């Protein structure tokens, strides 16, 4: 793997963000709005609970982590969609760029943009609503890493689906995180769900994070084994998503889909 082509993908995204407030603003704006809305909801719930329960860490913490996961997924797929929107596939894939280099470039792009969003979320939730991540301690790091890994896997999967189904299918992939959210227990324990939904939830890495987070906040000891299972599933999901993308890429090259993405009007 060569670093220059990976840097090229990253640089392209930087150029786009630098030159376009329409692209850079959502990195801050939507996460800020989410935190503000949920921050006031938790305040209201705290006032109703009259000190019997603190909703800030469990609810606002969950919102923050779910937003982070969503940003990672969207960071990968948006960087990919930039090539769809600018009809750049022919220019891009007629170069020595390998699929692994391309995907790594998308992932690093997503990490960079998501970190900005995470920083905004952390500052707002801590400074304005008093959310303290110190209560999660060092576990915050593995929690975020598992969500990060699964966000990457889902972003690669979404990109592969758009490549396979065509540009219009982007509307199918945006709601993917929302589709998964009922199964992973962002705001409630998995035990709340019917058994079949619990089973589906156990196949999704975020469920281990949110269950773990609630365990820690309740003052109970966290099972490292459960979090390791979540991490292992997330790592497996990345491999499966990358494999799926590669297969779709080969299919697109075999059927002419890859060339037609850029050359629909070519004779």
């Amino acid at each position: 793997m060569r670093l220059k082509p990976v840097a090229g993908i990253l640089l392209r995204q930087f150029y786009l963000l630098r030159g376009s407030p329409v692209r850079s603003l959502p990195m801050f704006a939507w996460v800020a709005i989410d935190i503000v809305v949920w921050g006031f909801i938790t305040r209201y719930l705290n006032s109703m609970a009259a000190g019997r329960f603190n909703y800030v860490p469990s609810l606002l913490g969950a919102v923050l982590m779910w937003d982070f996961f969503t940003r990672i997924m969207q960071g990968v797929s948006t960087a990919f969609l930039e090539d769809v929107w600018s009809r750049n596939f022919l220019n891009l894939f007629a170069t020595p760029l390998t699929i692994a280099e391309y995907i790594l470039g998308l992932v690093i792009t997503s990490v960079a943009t998501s970190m900005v969003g995470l920083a905004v979320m952390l500052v707002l939730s801590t400074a304005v609503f008093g959310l303290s991540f110190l209560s999660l301690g060092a576990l915050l790091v593995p929690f975020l890493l598992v969500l990060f890994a699964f966000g990457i896997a889902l972003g690669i999967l979404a990109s592969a689906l758009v490549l396979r189904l065509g540009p219009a299918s982007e509307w199918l992939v945006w709601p993917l995180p929302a589709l998964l959210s009922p199964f992973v227990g962002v705001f409630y324990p998995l035990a709340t769900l019917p058994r079949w939904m619990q089973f589906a939830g156990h196949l999704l890495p975020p469920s281990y994070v949110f269950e773990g987070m609630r365990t820690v906040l309740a003052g109970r000891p966290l099972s490292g084994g459960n979090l390791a299972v979540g991490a292992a599933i997330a790592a497996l999901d990345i491999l499966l998503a990358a494999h799926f993308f590669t297969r779709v890429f080969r299919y697109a090259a075999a059927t002419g889909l890859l060339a037609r993405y850029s050359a629909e009007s070519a004779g």
Partner: protein
Amino acid sequence: MSDHHVDGDPHSAGNSSPHAAGGTVLSVTGLCKSYSHVVAVEQVSFDVHRREVVGLLGPNGAGKTTTINMILGVLSPTAGSVRIGGVDLARERARALASVNFSAVYASLPGNLTVMENLRFFGLVYGIPQLGRRVAELLRQFDLERLRNTKCGLLSSGEQTRVALAKALLNRPRLLLLDEPTASLDPAAAQTMRARIRSLAVETGCGILWTSHNMYEVEEVCDRVLFLSHGRLLLEGDPRRLPREHGAASLEELFIRLASEPLAEPLASAG
């Protein structure tokens, strides 16, 4: 006449070239592409040599763009092989594509990046050493310095063509594929571009595969032409001699006659 005739023999076109085999930058052998029951390209074979400009001609739907896409690695052949500078594209894709570049009217560069940004982006993707210096050279060479900070989407057709050509030369390609590079240019700009591309082949030693519907242009620029029709390579030869050899008044007349043939009928009867 028979020297120039190509009728499905995978090696006949390549062997008829006067150039030494050591200077071969592109070797296409028995290339086929079919989509379920539709055959787009059938047993196409030819070579392109260093410093040679080869015209790939044919009516719309003849298989020119399909052939070019297979050489660029964005379309997998059903059968056959593409070797670029001796490197098999199917086996060593990245290494083979490192020495190729292209420009096509239907593959414009991202319009939301400036000229400079596009060149830097693609320069990194191609892994160009001393990229800053190379980009500066190309901006100067194609008279793009004043447009360096202009978004490509805002450029005129002629300017976009110059940027696309600058991008196509970033990696100093051994093989340059140009799909109708002058299609959107006015006659004066097209004339300048033809002269520039012609001199590129001489100065850099790269081989150029050029598609065009402008037969005057082909006669002026190309050392050799390949006629494709219905996905098959029908004829190959010197564009200045072929019309006479086939009893046509001009290359355009020969093109029209070939394009109207239902399939690859032996052209000897026409001559």
